[in-house]
């Protein structure tokens, strides 16, 4: 009911949150006191999903990555125009819909062009 809002209604939730937080923090704080501490090389190396890490983190990438990344950026940023269009969709009506379809169609032509030119070929 609006107007008869009682803050104490949520008191149990607060208690739960506090308990949850203290359990998490407690586990983190108590853990180091109890667990054994053994350090060796593999453990300190970078985590690579279980594989032994190869080489430095700084290395040269093939130019292919940049092409794909650039294409991604271009097509991705065009989505910026979809947001205002979606928000104002009701007011724009059918005309706005056609306009946006045309916009996407132009993007599609670009996409076909890029595809046929072989920019997505990895090898």
């Amino acid at each position, binding site marked *: 009911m609006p107007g008869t809002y009682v803050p104490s209604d949520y008191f149990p939730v607060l208690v739960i949150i506090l308990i949850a937080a203290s359990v998490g923090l407690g586990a983190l704080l108590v853990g180091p006191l109890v667990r054994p501490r053994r350090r060796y090389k593999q453990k300190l190396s970078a985590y690579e999903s279980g594989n032994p890490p190869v080489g430095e983190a700084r290395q040269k990438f093939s*130019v292919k990555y940049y092409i794909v990344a650039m294409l991604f*950026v271009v097509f991705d940023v065009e989505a910026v125009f979809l947001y*205002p269009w979606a928000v104002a969709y009701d007011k724009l009506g059918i005309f706005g819909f056609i306009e946006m379809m045309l916009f996407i169609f132009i993007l599609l032509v670009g996409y076909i062009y890029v595809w046929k030119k072989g920019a997505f070929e990895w090898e």
Partner: protein
Amino acid sequence: MVPLSWYIMLSAVMFSIGVFGFLARRNLIIIFMSIELMLNSVNISLVAFSHYLQSMRGQILVFFVIAVAAAEAAIGLAILIAYYKNNPTIKVDEITGLKG
């Protein structure tokens, strides 16, 4: 509430840093980033003005600037890579094939 003039100052300072970076730095990638900084400083002032004036035009322009900046970045980097394939350097001082 942050007054409008602060945003304008921030934008002006960012723009100046961008201009300075463009003129003074000697690495093409950093020059490129300076240009992006200039564009984004303009975006800040546009959004600030737009909010202050209660008008949508500034924000519309910001959308376009973001999209154009992405296209510009793609084309700029592509040109850079094409150049790099023929002469592997990104130092401005070493780009002297054409006098100027």
